[in-house]
């Protein structure tokens, strides 16, 4: 690994100032993605600002919302009683991600900041516009089995690998950010980016900005939820396709629904049109199938990932059926 300067930040202010003024400085929290990328020479910060001593670990709830500190560990969030009671979809998604060891290290903010990536991003012998802008995309004509079917560009077809992000986008979370110019909030759906012409930018965070918390407003989606993750092995693998489904039912009538997919785009992919098609309908496999067809409109496969065009809608139907309890 390259040498770097290591600084342990004791206040949020110094952490932000130090990182904002130095183009080669990065925050480090759990380090599960960053240290990996540094070992491979893909990410080469010359200064690491360790933020683990900042007081951002709390998970608390007050009227109308649950607030999760950016440094709360993935395992701690997945086992938190408030989360399990109010937002079980988030707990399910977290437990579907990575391994027990990684969830004990990875933080909520770090999970959001893990790179959208593919094997060509990791292979420094291959072109990758995300790793080396302008070098080309190895995946476009390469082995693109894991890649995007929505929202890609000719610059990048990688997918965001986070499971947590899929649940958070479905649950309409809000991201709290502190930065050199002050604080701001961003709707979760606007936090991550599509690749466009700047695939090197995964999200809309500005230099020196720090995620401080994620908030989820209370919602009626605490009962009929399911996170379905389809992957090459039973556990500890990235999703080929995943679906976060949450239903608010009144008897058999769908009063509200939230749907999002993972493993299909450069960012967690919310299925707004399919949601609209479901509201007011009666729970049935046929209804779910119709919504799934709507969800897949605009999807396009590549040479090796066209199976996702079939796996996607099937996964949506299965997730909704399980959430509704009609398996």
């Amino acid at each position, binding site marked *: *690994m*390259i*040498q*770097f*300067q*290591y*600084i*342990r930040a004791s206040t949020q202010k110094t952490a932000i100032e130090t990182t904002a003024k130095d183009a*080669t400085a990065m925050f*480090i929290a759990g*380090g*599960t993605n960053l*240290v*990996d990328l*540094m*070992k*491979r020479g893909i990410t080469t910060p*010359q*200064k*690491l600002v*360790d933020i*683990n001593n900042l007081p951002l670990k709390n998970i608390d709830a007050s009227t109308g919302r649950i607030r999760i500190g950016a440094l709360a560990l993935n*395992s701690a969030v997945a086992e938190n009683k408030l989360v399990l009671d109010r937002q079980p979809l988030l707990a399910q998604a977290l437990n579907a991600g*990575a*391994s*027990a*060891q*990684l969830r*004990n*290290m990875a933080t909520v903010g770090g999970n959001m900041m893990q790179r959208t990536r593919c094997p060509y991003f990791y292979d420094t012998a291959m072109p990758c516009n995300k790793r080396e802008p302008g070098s080309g995309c190895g995946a476009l004509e390469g082995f693109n089995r894991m890649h995007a079917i929505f929202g890609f560009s000719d610059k990048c077809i990688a997918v965001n690998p986070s499971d947590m992000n899929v649940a958070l986008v479905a649950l309409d979370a809000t991201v709290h950010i502190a930065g050199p110019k002050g604080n701001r909030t961003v709707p979760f759906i606007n936090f991550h980016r599509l690749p466009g012409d700047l695939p090197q930018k995964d999200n809309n965070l500005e230099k020196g900005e720090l995620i401080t918390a994620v908030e989820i407003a209370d919602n009626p989606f605490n009962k009929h939820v399911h996170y379905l993750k389809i992957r090459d092995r*039973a*556990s*500890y693998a990235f999703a080929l396709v995943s679906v976060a489904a949450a239903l608010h039912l009144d008897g058999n009538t769908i009063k509200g629904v939230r749907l999002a997919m993972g493993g299909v785009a450069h960012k967690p992919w919310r299925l707004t049109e399919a949601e609209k098609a479901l509201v007011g309908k009666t729970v049935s496999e046929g209804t779910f199938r119709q919504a799934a067809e709507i969800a897949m409109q605009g999807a396009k496969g590549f040479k090796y990932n066209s199976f996702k065009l079939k796996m996607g809608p099937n996964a949506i139907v299965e997730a909704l059926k399980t959430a509704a309890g009609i398996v």
Partner: protein
Amino acid sequence: MAEKKACSLPGDQASSNESRRDFLKQSSLLTAFAITPGVVVKAAESKWDEGIAASLEKMPLKLEINGVKQSLQVEPRVTLLDLLREQLALTGTKKGCDYGQCGACTVHVDGQRVLSCLTLAVMAEGKKVTTIEGLATGEQLHPMQAAFIKHDGFQCGYCTPGQIMSAVACIKEGHANSEAEIREFMSGNICRCGAYPNIVDAIMEVKQGGQQI
């Protein structure tokens, strides 16, 4: 084939000892500069003394490993895994993939199972680390070690220290209530020999035995 040329030295004084000494001095200095990482060059350029110090010098690190307090000096880029194996000769913790994919390097930090290959040692400041060497009590094996032997929970043995550390944590976390749950929560530990059924049996037995672990 490139034509082989004699190494020519600068100036007419090339053969004099004086010049040769100067040249060697100068060139080794240049070499030293060339292999110096960018951060130091940058720090030097901006006369940023503390920058040089922080990137080149080792940092003090105090932590407790297997009940023994350690006061060490490490470079920031040293992982906990390399610290254990290379500096402290605790080679029970294995380096499998070194990229957080196999679980062979699993240790406990403040009681939580983590991957030592993705943990910078400096980030374990003030923490309590337990490795496979810290599980047994003298000659008395830890119940999980004994169960792995009884159930033949390994073949080549390379993943075993990580499996055992993970298995102990799996029970402590309360994630060993069924075979399916054990398999899910042990999925971060890969065994190329495929000893999984026996590993699950060993964990089930320790869990059901209700021993202090």
